[in-house]
């Protein structure tokens, strides 16, 4: 109130220096001992009173003197009245709406800007932040968990540890002010109650995984319905689940399920790796088998054709001179065969005893691979005993 305001000196003028209270000193309770330690005492106090009394007397014309000066009195009254009237000016901020009551009864709402209401006892203005969003955290704010708020029973009788926030704003200022006694607390109570009702109908898995959005929406709707039924003048903007976990005690088991899923996946991956490797290898092997078979076929056919062609050529010539050719072929072949072999020529005719051959005769001619004519120093058997191994075919 302006007449209590130091910055706005009243009709009694500025407070005297040294006084820190502009109320009439007679009203100050208590004696000098009640005052602050810095307060002047004794004669100084008396001097102060004297000065004030003199000033007052000057204003109103003195006690036993010339009487009240009507002009001054009227001016003072007018000043007081003017200040009182001006006290009805107020600012409504852009995010606010003001609700004006006349003698306590709702009369009007005012939009942002500089506004006026009839001064204090007649009209009052209450400013309400309508566009600002308010937020309630249930289940404890970040870092400070409140288990009795956050632990909830789910539809399948499991327990979930769930923190959420509700964002709301004032939709109807007069209802907000006059209908509920404790709107802010009510929002929280309704939020808790609604969330628990919704969670109580939802299975734990769904809450933990993909059902969150549904829970949020259902809770917001239920809250809005309840608040509307109360006529609270509040709009629920959003319900947001900040955290939904299994309770501490069973978190490990839940994590294990996740790692089990990973394990199962990796087992499958291993198997697929094996499969890819083995099958492709088998395809390669199969190709090798079929290709080599094709090669074999081609090879044998070609060779056969070649051999057949060769034979045909020779046959043609052979037909011209069969005897000679036969003889020649035989001898040439024998030459080639015998040239590379160890040979023992034994004349068994007239031999009465078995011929013993030295073991050297049976050694392969590895050291003398190159044929040196027909004589590889093969010892002509001189012994005249028929060898055990020899079947000196009596070819004739």
């Amino acid at each position, binding site marked *: 109130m302006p007449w209590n305001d130091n910055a706005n000196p009243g009709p009694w003028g500025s407070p005297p220096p040294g006084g820190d209270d502009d109320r009439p000193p007679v009203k100050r309770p208590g004696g000098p001992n009640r005052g602050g330690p810095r307060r002047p005492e004794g004669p100084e106090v008396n001097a102060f009173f004297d000065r004030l009394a003199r000033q007052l007397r000057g204003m109103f014309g003195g006690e036993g003197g010339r009487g009240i000066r009507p002009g001054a009195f009227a001016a003072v009254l007018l000043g007081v009245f003017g200040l009182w009237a001006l006290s009805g000016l107020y600012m409504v901020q852009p995010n606010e709406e003001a609700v004006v*009551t006349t003698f*306590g009864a*709702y009369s009007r709402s005012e939009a942002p800007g500089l506004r006026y209401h009839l001064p204090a006892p007649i009209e009052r203005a209450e400013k309400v932040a309508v566009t600002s969003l308010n937020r309630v955290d249930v289940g404890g704010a970040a870092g400070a968990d409140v288990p009795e708020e956050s632990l*909830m*029973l789910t539809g399948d009788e499991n327990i979930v540890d769930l923190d959420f926030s509700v964002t709301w704003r004032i939709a109807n200022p007069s209802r907000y002010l*006059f*209908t509920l*006694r*404790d709107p802010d607390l009510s929002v929280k*109570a309704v939020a808790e*109650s609604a969330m*628990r*009702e919704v969670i*109580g109908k939802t299975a734990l898995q769904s809450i933990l995984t993909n059902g969150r959005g549904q829970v949020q929406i259902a809770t917001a709707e239920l809250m809005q319905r309840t608040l509307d039924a109360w006529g*609270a003048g509040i709009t629920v903007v959003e319900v947001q689940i900040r955290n939904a976990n*299994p309770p501490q*005690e*069973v978190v490990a*088991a839940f994590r*294990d*399920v996740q790692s*089990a899923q990973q*394990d*199962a996946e*990796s087992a*499958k991956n291993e*198997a*697929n790796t094996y*499969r890819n490797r*083995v*099958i492709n290898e088998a*395809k390669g*092997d199969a190709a090798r088998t*079929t290709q*080599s*078979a094709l090669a074999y*076929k081609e090879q*044998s*056919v070609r060779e056969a*054709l070649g*051999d*057949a062609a060769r034979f*045909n050529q020779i*046959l043609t010539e*052979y037909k011209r001179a069969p005897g000679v050719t*036969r003889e020649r*072929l*035989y001898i040439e*072949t024998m030459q080639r*065969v015998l040239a590379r*072999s160890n*040979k*023992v*020529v*034994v*004349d068994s*005719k007239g031999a009465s005893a078995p011929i013993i051959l030295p073991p050297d005769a*049976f050694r392969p001619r590895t050291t003398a691979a190159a044929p040196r004519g027909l004589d590889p120093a093969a010892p002509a058997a001189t012994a005249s005993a028929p060898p055990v191994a020899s079947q000196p075919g*009596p070819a*004739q």
Partner: protein
Amino acid sequence: MSRRFVALSVVAIAFLVVVANTLFIVEQREQAIITRFGEPMRVINPPQSPDPGLHMKTPFLDQVIRLDKRNQSLEADQEEIVAADQERLVVDAFIRYRISNPLQYYRTLRDERGAGPLIERLVNSSLRQVLGSATSADIISGHRGALMQQAKIDVARRAATARFGIEVIDLRIKRADLPAANQPTVYRRMQTDRQQAAAQIRAVGEQQKREIIASADKEVAITLAGATETAEATRGEGDALRTRIFAQSFGRDAGFASFYRSMQAYEAALGQGDTTMVLSPDSAFFKYFERGPGAK
């Protein structure tokens, strides 16, 4: 002059005192009862006939008793309730009500301090009765809404009977939880349930792994067998062609073919240098060797 001033002041002050005692404000959010010597005379601004604002009363004789008109909440103490299926639940509820009949309210409950415990007791006994006849599953999930409605009606009925002068706007169960002593059991069940799920998932994974490996092995065997089949058929074709070619060719002179082929075979089989031959000089090769140039 000063006498007049003093007299005027006295009159003015007296007037102000009387006016201040006659006029009074009833705010939008409250309702008032006017009592004279403690006896309620009339009600101002009750919910049925809203009339907030400036009002008058007989000064000094009449007294104004103000009561809240708004919708207010009362939280009942947490209570353990035995449901119909003998399961215990800790229930936390709150009621929202409004003083609808200030006179009744004032006569029965006097003020909020008197009203609180009475209303709370009423809420508790209502909840006990309504929830006691429902199963815990209904309370937790199935029919919470209906049960709350039922409890609300029950409270309203009892409040009306007890002449509380309140209107029950809503009754909501905030929490319906298992007692703390039961939580470990629930946790154990959840734990074993999850362990079972984990084992199942792992087993299915292992099963799939084995299935994949087995089918891969099968495919490998089939692929290889198919290849062998084709390969053998191909080789057979080759052999058949070879046989036909030789048969055609050699068939033109079987005797010479036999001779010629034997020669080739001798050379291939014996001409490698690892054979020791014991020969008789009277073989055909040695015809001249033995009998000289005149041999026949």
